C-alpha cells in the first residue's frame, strides 16, 4: 500500500511527511519529523505524555493517525519556548522543581499551556481536573499544580 503524503503545519512551520495509514501522529512527530520532545508513555491515551494541540485542541498524539493530521496546525513542546527564552510555564516548572525524571513533563507543559489559553486564572481544582489525563509517577503532582498556578499569576501580570 502506498504511503500517504501529508501536509500540515507544526509549530507554525509548514511540513510534509509520508506515513503508513496505521502510523499514529506520535509516530510521525517522533520518527518522520524528529520531534522527540513529545513522549510515548502508554500508547493508549491514558498517560498524556504525548499531549499536543491540533487546531488548538489538546489531544493525545497516540490516539490520532498521522493521516488525520492532513491540513491541521499542530503544536508540540518544541514550539513552546521562544528561541532561548523559556515559556513562563517552563520556567516555573524549573523553579518549583515540578519534575524529576522528566518523561511526563512535555505533556504536562503542553496541557497546562492549553488550559491557561482558555482559563488565565484557574482554580487549583480546575488545574487538577484539566491535568487529570497527565500522569506523573515521580512528583506527587503538588509541585506541578503550584508551578501552573504560579505561571498563570505571572502571565496575568499579578
Amino acid at each position, binding site marked *: 500500500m502506498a504511503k500517504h503524503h501529508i501536509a500540515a503545519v507544526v509549530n507554525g512551520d509548514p511540513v510534509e511527511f509520508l506515513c503508513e495509514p496505521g502510523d499514529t501522529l506520535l509516530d510521525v512527530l517522533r520518527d518522520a519529523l524528529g520531534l522527540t520532545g513529545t513522549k510515548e508513555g502508554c500508547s*493508549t491515551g491514558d498517560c498524556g505524555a504525548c499531549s499536543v494541540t491540533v487546531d488548538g485542541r489538546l*489531544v493525545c498524539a497516540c*490516539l490520532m493517525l498521522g*493521516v*488525520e493530521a492532513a491540513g491541521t496546525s499542530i503544536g508540540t513542546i518544541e514550539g513552546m519556548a521562544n528561541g532561548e527564552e523559556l515559556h513562563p510555564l517552563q520556567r516555573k516548572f524549573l523553579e518549583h522543581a515540578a519534575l524529576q525524571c522528566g518523561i511526563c513533563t512535555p505533556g504536562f507543559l503542553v496541557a497546562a499551556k492549553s488550559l491557561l489559553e482558555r482559563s488565565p486564572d484557574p482554580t487549583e481544582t480546575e488545574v487538577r481536573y484539566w491535568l*487529570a489525563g497527565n500522569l506523573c509517577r515521580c512528583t506527587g503532582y503538588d509541585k506541578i499544580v503550584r508551578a501552573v498556578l504560579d505561571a498563570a499569576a505571572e502571565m496575568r501580570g499579578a
Partner: protein
Amino acid sequence: MRYEAPNTLDQAVALLAAELGEARVLAGGTDLLVQMRTDVIDPVLLVDIKGIAETRQIREEAGGFRIGAAVTGAELKEYPRLGSVWPGVVEAANLIGSTQIQGRATMGGNLCNGSPAADSVPALIAAGARASIVGPQGRRDVAVEDVMLAPRKLSLAKGEIVASFLLPAKPPRTGDAYLRFIPRTEMDIAVVGCGICLTLDARGACTAARVSLGAVAERPLLVAEAARVLTGNEALPVLLQKLDAAARAACRPIDDKRGTKDYRIKVAGVLARRAAQIAYQRARES
C-alpha cells in the same frame, strides 16, 4: 490497511459495503486506535467520517438539536445553549476520559464502540434521542436504545453508519440528568450509570419520565417500569423508593473487576434516586 476519508455519506457507505474484510468507521478514534494497538481488531479498511459535514455539525432542528456523530465532547460543551437545554447529555459525554480524550471522543463512537458502560448512551436514551443511520438501503431513524444489542454488537447492517443524533425539542418543565459511579473522581469506566429525563405538570407532579441504566446488563437499558413508577401519585420520597426498587429489578449485571453483581444492583437504585432528584430540580427550574 487502507485509510479513506470520503466527503459524503454515500461514498462512505459504498466503501464500507464493498469491503469484504474487516472494515471500521473512524470517528474520534479514542477506542478504535487502542483496539488496533492492542490487537483486539485488525481492520483492512478504516473509513474516516470526519470529512462528512453532517457528522461534524451541531444545529438546531425541529425545536431540538441535530448533533453529528463525530462531534467531540469538547465541542458539545462549548456549543451555546445545548448544555442548558440538555445538561444531562452534555455532562455524560464530558465524563468520558481526560481533557485530551474530550478533544477527540464522540457520541457516535461511544455508542458504536458497543460497550454497555458507555457514559453518553444512557443520557441519550433518557433524553429520547434518535440515531440517524445511513446505509446501502438509504436512511433510517432509530431510537438510541435500539442501536446496541450486546457487547461489541450493534443492530447496524453491513455498510450502515450512524451519521447523527436528534435530541428532541424539550417539553416545558422537563429536566435531564446523568450520574455514574466510579471508585475515584475522574478517568474511569462506569460501575453503573443512570440517565433520567422527566417532565412535570404545573403542580410539580411527574407526568412523563424515561430512565436508562448503563453497565448493569449486556447493553444500556431503557427501564419502562422505573419510568412508570415516577408518574405515580405518591409523595416524592415514596416515588424515589419505588424508583430505587424498579431500577434494581431491571439489572442483570455481571461480576467483574469494577464491581460485583450485588454491588452494581444496589448502586443502580441509589444512582436512580439521585439522578431523579437532579432531574426534578432541573425540571422545576426550566
